[in-house]
């Protein structure tokens, strides 16, 4: 039996994320440095390639809009996996969330859409919890089953409720939402005189880029986006600074030891998975808000991308938010401009070259060589390709996910008992 003393210790020390290579720096300073490097890199690529969409405020606003559902779903995954339940069913719960939001939203407005989506997501979470916690079914199997089932349920419900509906809608979509959520802008800077907007239009190197990014983040932001962003630090405080969080995480690290200390493990796992379903459902609600309507296949695998963001973020709130930002940005870019995706290849090439240099200084020549080869490949693609065809551009976020995971995932540590079926008294 593992010693009890490891439980509090294993989670409270801040763990180095995928960017932990920049050792000897505090997490905050490291994150800031990475963000600065990323903006400078994008600014340089924008000037070289002439692709204004790379850092325009509209792209950044779209990125925020698309990062939020991914981030919310990843947060959902965080609660579930920190309690020790792997949640592949996030996609299914998100699908249920979109349907719930569409159904409640067209009848009673945006706040009802939020509640409806969250409740539907929780239903999916409940199903997952019953299967995995009560019946001890393998977590991945149960998650896959929920994904299949959720797609069937929403189609069934739409067929039943929307086909002869006076308000509109059909087999694959709901009637349109009646009210949009209220939107906020920063006074003076991004509305009214709109100082950031005019600065952005100057197209100066770096200055306009920063202005574009800031304006995108502050102009016409939905109330719920603000709420979602706030949920990231709130989740951190709840999971790492309260006794509830400590107990929940202890269920994911060593449930038997937690049990011996009197933590009701099954109950905490239920709570974790239910919160997970609620947050994934909320992610679905955001997708419905973006479109103003529920559509079938609206999630497009974003639940899975959320899971990838969680893994990239090393099962921590800050990391998963960074992952969601990357995926949201690539998603936004692909939606806004096909030629900008080509410019992204240049950024990838430069980024890989930096990685290669880093590997070589660490005397890891093989990894460095591989990075150089891939850098050359993306540079060649950038120089030879003008515009990518739509079919290819559509999977940009998924390729970025794969790339990021394969570059980052070796330094990760998932909760120790994550994915293991726990039966009380059998540990």
């Amino acid at each position: 039996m593992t010693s009890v003393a490891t439980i509090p210790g294993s989670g409270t020390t801040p763990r180095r994320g995928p960017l932990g290579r920049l050792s000897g720096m505090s997490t905050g300073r490291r994150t800031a440095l990475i963000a600065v490097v990323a903006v400078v890199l994008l600014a340089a690529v924008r000037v070289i390639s002439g692709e204004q969409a790379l850092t325009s405020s509209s792209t950044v606003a779209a990125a925020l809009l698309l990062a939020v559902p991914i981030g919310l779903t990843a947060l959902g995954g965080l609660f579930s996996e920190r309690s020790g339940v792997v949640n592949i069913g996030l996609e299914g719960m998100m699908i249920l969330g979109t349907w719930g939001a569409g159904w409640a939203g067209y009848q009673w407005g945006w706040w009802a859409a939020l509640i409806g989506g969250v409740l539907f997501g929780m239903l999916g979470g409940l199903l997952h919890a019953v299967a995995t916690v009560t019946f001890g079914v393998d977590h991945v199997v149960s998650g896959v089953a929920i994904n299949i089932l959720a797609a069937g349920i929403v189609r069934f419900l739409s067929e039943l409720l929307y086909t002869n509906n006076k308000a509109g809608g059909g087999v694959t979509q709901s009637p349109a939402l009646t009210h949009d959520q209220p939107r906020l802008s920063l006074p003076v800077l991004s509305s009214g005189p709109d100082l950031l907007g005019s600065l952005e239009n100057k197209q100066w190197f770096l200055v306009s880029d920063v202005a574009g990014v800031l304006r995108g983040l502050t102009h016409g932001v939905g109330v719920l986006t603000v709420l979602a962003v706030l949920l990231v630090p709130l989740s951190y405080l709840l999971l790492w600074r309260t006794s509830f969080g400590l107990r929940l995480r202890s269920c994911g690290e060593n449930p038997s030891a937690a049990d011996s200390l009197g933590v009701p493990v099954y109950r905490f796992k239920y709570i974790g998975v239910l919160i997970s379903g609620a947050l994934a459902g909320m992610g679905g609600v955001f997708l419905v808000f973006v479109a103003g309507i529920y559509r079938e296949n609206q999630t497009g695998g974003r639940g899975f991308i959320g899971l990838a963001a969680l893994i990239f973020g090393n099962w921590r709130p800050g990391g998963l938010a960074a992952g969601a930002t990357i995926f949201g940005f690539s998603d936004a870019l692909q939606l806004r401009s096909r030629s900008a995706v080509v410019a992204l290849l240049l950024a990838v090439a430069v980024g890989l070259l930096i990685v290669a240099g880093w590997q070589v200084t660490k005397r890891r020549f093989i990894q460095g060589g591989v990075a150089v080869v891939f850098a050359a490949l993306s540079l060649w693609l950038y120089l030879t390709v003008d515009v990518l065809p739509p079919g290819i551009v559509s999977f940009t976020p998924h390729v970025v996910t794969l790339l990021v995971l394969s570059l980052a995932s070796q330094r990760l540590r998932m909760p120790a008992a994550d994915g293991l079926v726990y039966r009380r008294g059998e540990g």
Partner: protein
Amino acid sequence: MNVLRRVGLSLFAPVLAIVVALIISSAVMAALEVNPIEVFKVMVDFGTTPNQQITAVVVIINRAIPLFIAGLAVAIAFRMGLFNIGVEGQYRLATIMAAAAGAAVNLPAPLHIAMIIVIAMAVAAAWAAIVAVLKVTRGVSEVISSIMLNYVALGLAGYLITGPFRGSAAGASIVATTPIPQSGWLPGLNKIFDVLGLANPPRQLYSFLIIAIVLGVVVSILINRTRFGYDLRASGLSPSAASASGVNARAMVIKTMLLSGAVAGLIGLPDLLGTTHQYTTDFTAGLGFLGIAVALLGRNKPIGIALAALLFAFLDRSSVPLQIANFPASVVTIIQGTIVLTVVVANEIARRIALRQAERLGAQVVAPVPGDGSTGGGQGPGGDLPPDGGPGGGSAAPGMGSSDEPQGARA
């Protein structure tokens, strides 16, 4: 007696699951004011004339063939504790490549068909190999990477069919590849009906049925009767024990994914070689995901998968009659999804019953040793696998396909 009990126990879980699933989906339908009894009546109604009835059977078998192959592809990986969720993308990409290659050449009939089959298997295996290489070298969870590759494959297929491989005219309503010449067609098996003295409907029974049966036998032998299959099953049951006995875990991941992918490449071929002869934008989709369900229902055994494929094909066939009878056709999806969920629960319950029986028997034979490890067999984390970026890797699959092993140990 022993055999009878074993068969009884392995049938218990799926049958219980199907019954419970039917009850649950009936309740759902009743709650939404759809009469479940009427729905089931439509489902089992195969028509009145012998011609209609045989046609219904042919439709079911033709649908069951790709489902069976898909189930096999998933099951091969499952037996090793790997989740190949990428079957969907693997077969779609393989089918469009095979269709394009088949249309581009002109060969004598058997060679032409063989070439199409080999290309389909090679493309899908290569696509699955990406997942394996990422897992082995970079520790990326196969669950995430195969899902991401599904989207990439579907996007690629969409690009290929509208771009380089487009064979249909510019204004055509359905975009398609150039049709495969007749030497690359597989004739139907309908002569069987004449021999048996049954009605011979116009709908052709796919002769891919024979290939599927052979494939099932080969996979069964490979997994149960060869060294490779033994290593594969051992890795699935206990990765640490397998690698302690000399199994190279990384090589096994790559070999298993290649095999699973190669089988997945065949999924689209019954339709491609039997009826459509070209890849179209509305080519049968979703077989890879259904394959996961079929493999779970069939408990990763070829015979079970065949039965599960027939059941799912039967359910699928009823979606058209349901629509004609003005019922929501998605009832079928609901039933299928519920079956999957109840099956995994029932499998788990059956596994525990088997485990308890084996424990009781073990206690009779040997004096009870405290903590002999039999209960913890599924819980051991595969700590010596390559660093695993995500959930579901190696250690996460204690329940899969292991339900009858304690019994096997008893024999």
